[in-house]
């Protein structure tokens, strides 16, 4: 039975999305899933991250095809609008399900070998 448990945990760990293993990136996707689009400054305010860190995480998600960015001017100021793509939404749903399963199973961080 314990072996089965370890196998289950290993299987669930494989379901975790590597790109969403960072809490900042997971937070970005969770927030974007609740709106059509959010600006860089709004994401920064909600996640309480620095410009540099948030920019780096957004770039990784954009490169992964999880989000898109649209730049426009609002009141003559440049604004970057970020929106979640369908692939990002699917990845986030799967990742959150895997996290829930892991927390439920009480994974202690052991290596899945």
């Amino acid at each position: 039975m314990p072996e089965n448990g370890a196998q289950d945990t290993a299987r669930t760990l494989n379901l975790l999305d590597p790109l969403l293993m960072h809490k900042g990136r997971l937070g970005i996707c969770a927030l974007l899933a609740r709106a059509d689009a959010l600006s860089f400054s709004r994401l920064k305010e909600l996640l309480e991250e620095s410009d540099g860190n948030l920019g780096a995480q957004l770039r990784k998600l954009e490169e992964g095809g999880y989000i898109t960015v649209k730049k426009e001017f609002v009141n003559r100021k440049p604004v970057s609008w970020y929106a979640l793509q369908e692939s990002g939404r699917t990845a986030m749903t799967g990742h959150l399900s895997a996290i829930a399963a892991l927390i439920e199973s009480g994974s202690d961080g052991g290596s899945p070998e």
Partner: protein
Amino acid sequence: MSTSTPSSAELAQDLAYVRNAVHRHTLSRDDLAIALLWAIVNLIGLSLYDWSTRAGGLFWLTALPVFGAGTWFWAARRGLTQGEANRDLGQRHALHWTAIPIFLILANFVHLRGFDPVLAGQIVLLIIGLVYYLGGVHFWRGYCFGGIALASGVIWLSLLDQWAWTLTGVLTFLGLAVPALWSSRKMGHA
């Protein structure tokens, strides 16, 4: 969490981080300012009925479209300036709150069959109270208190000969303003 295998404690910490961000996203100070605005509008509009039914009617005839459009404009502008585009939420708000003018117009037909004006007033308070209460269920919990306070006017109109509308107005003001100020304080501490 960045290294190979996350523990459940690390995962729970990350989820708490995400949950906090989502919680901050749920409410903004502008939402609370809008609730405060309507607390004042209700206080004035309801209290006026104790002085003059005609003045109360005229107030609402003006206040509903003016402050309704103002709130819509405020909320739309907030989305743009705060960096948030959320058409679905905007549509849900619009559908929910336009229930008030729609059902108020329909409630006027209660008068046409010669019903007691107090009874008509009670029906109107029940309708608006319910819309506010459901606003609390769907958008911000504070509206539940405002809704109950509004609907409590049914009791005061039955029991009191004087000041029933003023009492309802004061209670509605408190039902909306106290949770708004409380939430605003909590946001300040967060």
